[in-house]
């Protein structure tokens, strides 16, 4: 199987990343598309996923010579292919692009992959990843290559990183939602709609941080546009929100929270609320002994993430 080292050895890089739409004069221009990385579509307010389709064309270059042979991941005379795969749990759909085949003797490969997303078919996010498959097996593999995958349709692995296309929302991986409340309403609040955290997705429809943009302190929260690392108030709000989020999860689904807390087996869907909570607790080693420790470590984590300029958890 393709591992990180094998992927690195082929020296792959996306050469171009181009979005277009069949409606004249409508440009789904993204906020500086790159791979990997989140891409927000229609941020200029013209393209929208209900009325407009979306075409994506990505060209990649790589040298797959190291893939073939006993020390590689495929038999010497097999044909492999690269494909762009997409998944969208929110849209209940998944699919893939055209496959671009290549062999050992192909030398350096230039692969142009196309995807079409019809109008009014997608919501939320679509995740892209680039994967390699066996297209045609080696009919007479060398005896030293018998351990290698050699059946058409077998997946050999994915290139590092995924790319998220945001059909809705502002591209934040964190579910922030601004609303126009009354000036004397709270500056922020948590909305938690999930009844099944192991299935419900971690998206704004289910759980979000709502910011009242008519509150007198809103400018202090927002700061100067593009301020690196967020404002101190923003960091405090996000840390408090995460504490609240975990407490609500614990209150409404104590069995789920116990599994997460003790790191025992829990079946949850990719991208679900439980998946996010698991990621948060395990990746950042959040102290779960008591509320004080939980809150303190979350504050520290959020400060670190924002100061690193990541801006996302």
């Amino acid at each position: 199987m393709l591992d990180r080292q094998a992927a690195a050895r082929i020296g792959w890089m996306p050469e171009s990343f181009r979005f277009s739409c069949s409606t004249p004069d409508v440009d789904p221009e993204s906020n500086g598309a790159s791979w990997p990385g989140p891409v927000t579509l229609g941020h200029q307010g013209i393209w929208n996923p209900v009325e407009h389709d979306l075409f994506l064309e990505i060209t990649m270059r790589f040298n797959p010579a190291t893939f073939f042979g006993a020390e590689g991941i495929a038999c010497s005379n097999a044909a492999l292919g690269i494909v762009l795969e997409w998944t969208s749990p929110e849209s209940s759909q998944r699919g893939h692009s055209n496959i671009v085949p290549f062999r050992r003797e192909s030398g350096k490969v230039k692969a142009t992959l196309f995807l079409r997303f019809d109008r009014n078919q997608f919501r939320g996010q679509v995740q892209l990843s680039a994967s390699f498959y066996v297209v045609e097996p080696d009919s007479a593999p060398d005896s030293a290559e018998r351990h290698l995958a050699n059946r058409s349709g077998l997946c050999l692995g994915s290139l590092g990183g995924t790319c998220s296309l945001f059909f809705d929302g502002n591209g934040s991986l964190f579910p922030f939602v601004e609303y126009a409340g009354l000036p004397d309403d709270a500056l922020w609040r948590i909305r938690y709609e999930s009844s099944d955290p192991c299935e419900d997705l971690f998206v704004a429809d289910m759980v979000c941080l709502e910011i009242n943009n008519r509150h007198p302190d809103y400018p202090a929260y927002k700061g100067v546009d593009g301020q690196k690392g967020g404002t101190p108030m923003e960091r405090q709000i996000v840390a408090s929100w995460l504490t609240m989020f975990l407490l609500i999860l614990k209150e409404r689904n104590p069995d789920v929270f116990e599994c997460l807390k003790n790191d025992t087996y829990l079946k949850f869907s990719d991208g679900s609320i439980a998946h996010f909570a698991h990621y948060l607790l395990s990746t950042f080693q959040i102290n779960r002994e008591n509320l004080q420790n939980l809150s303190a470590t979350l504050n520290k984590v959020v400060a670190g993430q924002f100061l690193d300029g990541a801006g996302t958890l």
Partner: protein
Amino acid sequence: MIIPHIVNSVAEEAYKRLQQTGFSYKGANPELRAMLYLPLNEIVKKFTSKEYKEYTADIEAGLVLYSLFSPDKIGLRSASDEGIWKYLSIEIAPDLVYARWGDKENRFWKEKRRIWLKTVWWFIHLSWQGDEESTRKILQDLTTDEIVQLVERAGSGYRVDLNREIMKQLPAYRSKSTHRDIFRVVMKFNTARLIATEPSFSEGGTVGYVRRLFNSLSQR
């Protein structure tokens, strides 16, 4: 066609009111109600008079919904929005959902994979063979268990073409299989194989992949 969407907190409150008032329709969106009521009520009447089995009622309801809210009309963007199915269940057709399921909030709003109207719509979508007659034909003689096995295996998103091919080939294998639960076993095999295989790139494409899937079971 735009169908309103409701979130869980609204659905929960509305459901409590329905429980207090006997699950009757309260007058929301009369046009939508008129569109749904007549055809769905015919099915529910037959179901409550035991003319239909539960599964037949589900299939017929699914076909009605799929005709009224076809992907061309509402788009998969809306069909995948559980909020619209909660709205239809609670505000537009509470009496009809109640007639099928009784006071079970999971079937109205609470469990996204169990919302009845959504489940039967997606079962038809994933089984669709190009027209209603062909689809009904491949679905006859199945059971409610097939609905669960198909719809509840969404993973990171459905592979629509693959599911339709499995449903197409199922009747032939089911009729000669000694496995009572052939579909459940095939779907489990399929889930395991998809971790390492893309059906459309395998020998014979999706059709060949599905044939091998069923054959591997019959050889056991």
